């Protein structure tokens, strides 16, 4: 088992442990706070990771990514405002629970089911990756093209009530992708004389502009309630009935999450939503859903965490990012000279297994952070958003600037979206 011989020794070195802790800590904080998502946090920290070695950088960035899925439920439970989009479904039943004085139990159960979801997601990742790599090794350009088409169309079609709008966003992404030098002819397109646009629009700038800045603007208009209250440890002890009723939904949620996470264009949000619907469908008393049923809290939290872990499968094995956040993490790998794809596990086993081992360590740390230290996060929720967002804007600007010390990039982070041209990250093409 390379996980134990290669992975754990690397992930448990003191430096990497510190970066792992930093990642999951920041991830939880970002998840707890509504109005700032994992993407903005990762993009802000990206320039910091340039100074680290590749494994440490990835451990830090990934920690933020899966850490947000833990923190995200806290605001759902206490404020009825989801910390991240993937936790929106959790609020349906956990907020009524909090109103009945069962906030502590909801907080404990979401942390525990998150952990179980993550664990099942990581096991899926370990089992499936070698199989997919076997298949992906025989892929030629045609296969990759087909896979890209599937990814783009799945983005448009899955989980959207209006596929035409999903298609519109895919097209805008492709259009923005044509900006810069054409890889086949060397002709500079849509640069309007700006030297800075020759290399196209970077994914970090685009992600921050389209998701980071817009999220802030949208959150300013929403009125943010701050939470004033305390959660005691005694109130967190679930009843035997709570635990018994959570077992099956947690496992089902983790299964559904593992599946949706690995699909490009699906991801944690859809996984959580779908697993909630499944629980409601198979329940003997579906009318109780939305009125504080523990099943409706356990299933989506297990699902979104499992999906956050299996989202690494297409990225690590084929070099295809399933979501924008994954695309930014992929960008970070490229900056460090590591090309994700079927050859990565052979060429950089230290990175591959070190990262996966860090997932285990990170999740144990998250369990500690979210159960004994829950009071800290409740405190963070008491900071009003209008005092928070101007600082976030400053950090975002500095983060984008530091990526390549260019003021031009800051100006461009006004709203845009892009898909990376395939040749940038796919082995065997162009």
């Amino acid at each position, binding site marked *: 088992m390379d996980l134990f011989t290669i992975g754990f020794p690397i992930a448990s070195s003191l430096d990497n442990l510190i970066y792992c802790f930093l990642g999951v800590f920041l991830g939880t904080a970002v998840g707890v706070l509504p109005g700032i998502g994992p993407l903005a946090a990762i993009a802000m920290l990206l*320039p*910091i990771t340039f*100074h680290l070695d590749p494994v440490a950088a990835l451990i830090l960035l990934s920690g933020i990514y899966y850490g947000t899925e833990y923190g995200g439920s806290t605001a759902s439970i206490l404020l009825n405002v989801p910390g991240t989009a993937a936790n929106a479904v959790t609020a349906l039943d956990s907020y009524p629970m909090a109103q009945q004085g069962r906030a502590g139990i909801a907080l404990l159960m979401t942390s525990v089911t998150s952990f179980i979801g993550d664990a099942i997601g990581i096991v899926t990742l370990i089992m499936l990756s070698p199989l997919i790599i076997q298949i992906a090794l025989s892929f030629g350009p045609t296969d990759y093209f087909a896979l890209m088409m599937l990814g783009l169309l799945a983005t448009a079609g899955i989980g959207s009530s209006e596929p*035409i*709008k999903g*298609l*519109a966003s895919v*097209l*805008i992404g*492709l*259009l923005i992708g*044509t900006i810069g030098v*054409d890889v*086949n*002819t060397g*002709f500079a*397109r*849509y640069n309007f004389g700006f030297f800075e646009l020759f290399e196209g629009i970077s994914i970090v700038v685009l992600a921050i502009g389209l998701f980071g*800045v817009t999220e*802030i*603007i949208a959150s*300013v*208009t929403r009125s943010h309630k701050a939470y004033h209250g305390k959660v005691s440890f005694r109130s967190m002890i679930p009843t035997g009935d709570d635990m018994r009723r959570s077992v099956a939904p947690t496992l089902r949620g983790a299964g559904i999450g593992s599946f949706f996470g690995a699909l490009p264009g699906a991801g944690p949000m859809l996984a959580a939503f779908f697993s909630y619907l499944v629980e409601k469908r198979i329940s003997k008393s579906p009318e109780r859903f939305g009125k504080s049923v523990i099943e409706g809290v356990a299933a989506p939290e297990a699902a979104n965490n499992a999906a956050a872990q299996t989202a690494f499968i297409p990225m690590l094995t084929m070099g295809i990012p399933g979501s924008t956040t994954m695309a930014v993490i992929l960008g970070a790998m490229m900056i460090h000279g590591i090309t994700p794809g079927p050859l990565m596990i052979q060429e950089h086993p230290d990175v591959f297994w070190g990262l996966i081992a860090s997932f285990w360590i990170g999740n144990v740390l998250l369990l500690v952070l979210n159960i004994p230290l829950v009071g800290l996060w409740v405190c963070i929720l008491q900071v*009003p*958003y*209008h*005092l928070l*967002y*101007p*600082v976030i*804007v*400053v*950090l975002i*600007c*500095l983060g984008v*600037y*530091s990526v390549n*010390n260019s*003021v031009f990039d*800051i*100006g461009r*982070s*006004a709203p845009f979206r892009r898909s990376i041209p395939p040749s940038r990250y796919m082995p065997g093409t162009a």
Partner: protein
Amino acid sequence: VKPDVKDICAGALLSLVGLFFFFQALDYGVGTARRMGPGYFPMALGVATMVVGLAILVPAFKRSGEALKISWRPIAAVLGSILAFGILLTWTGLVPAVLATVFIAAMGSEVTRPPATIALAVFAAAIAWLIFVVGLNQPLPPFRNLF
């Protein structure tokens, strides 16, 4: 409210973007399907975008939708603060840029009070200086062209 103004605007905007990319691509040399020029792919995308834009635009006239409500204040404040940061960073240095960014961004919210904003701006400038200049050694002078 009838018609669905939101989707009409979205569809129209999308079609215009497609149209722009289409015409621009014609200048780049389209070539043929066998020997594609640099403009071939963007041209095809431009056409597809126009079609999708119209497909969103046209049906929207026949149904009702949410009223279009744009909160200009936070949009102007946040985008303005980013612009100010970009201009001031190379002109007057890191500290003035951060202070201006916080002041302008804070104007987007109706509940912010001046004393809190001043404290916040100083705090943000200190954090930015500590992380990016002291911690990461970024070439960002705290002040420039001021003294």
